[in-house]
């Protein structure tokens, strides 16, 4: 299983800090599409994705246990 973390406006829209799904074997792009549809997230496209706290490209394949985080455009500083 895979934990998926939401931040900023995504967290507000989903209404959860995290959800757990089975994403193993899927690419980042596939998981993004799935999650966007399920939670009606229109701006997920502009978010980057991190796997296990490191940015990951859209074609990376997720393994069981990987922690996935969607990273909206950052605004720290």
């Amino acid at each position: 299983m895979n934990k998926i973390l939401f931040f900023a406006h995504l967290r507000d829209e989903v209404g959860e800090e995290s959800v757990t799904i089975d994403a193993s074997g899927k690419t980042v792009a596939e998981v993004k599409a799935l999650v966007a549809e399920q939670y009606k997230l229109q701006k997920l496209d502009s978010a980057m994705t991190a796997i296990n706290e490191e940015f990951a490209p859209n074609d990376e394949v997720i393994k069981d246990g990987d922690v996935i985080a969607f990273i909206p455009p950052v605004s720290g500083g």
Partner: protein
Amino acid sequence: MMYEIAKDPIDIQSVIDKVVQREAGAINTFIGTVRELTKGKKTLYLIYEAYEPMAVKKLEQIGNEIKERWEGAEVAITHRVGKLDITDVAVVIAVSTPHRADSYEANRYAIERIKEIVPIWKKEHWEDGQEWIGNQLETVAYPSGKPEEGDLNE
């Protein structure tokens, strides 16, 4: 710990103390504070949120990029999260180097990189609403690469 996410007010001196070195003639410190007016709109307060473990890793990555580019540099960065009022300190970046020009340039590099790759977000609260801020201009991000010279002068 040279790279921290803090829930309490940041003690600026303690961040500076981390980069003191006998080889340094210069310490440049950048302090980001909460400004009241942005584009004529009055901010009441901000909420900062971070993906903490990843944010710390990315701050460390920035420090390592700096040490690679500017010889002899030491770097410490603390970013605060939670509710911040006007004039509160959101981030402190301290960079020490042997010579002064490098301390300014390396510090400037750090704040620009923070705004590109560190998973921290701010929500602005105004009298008439609130919004998560982030790249409303849809500009390019540099998740793994480094910004070009031109990107530092925006």
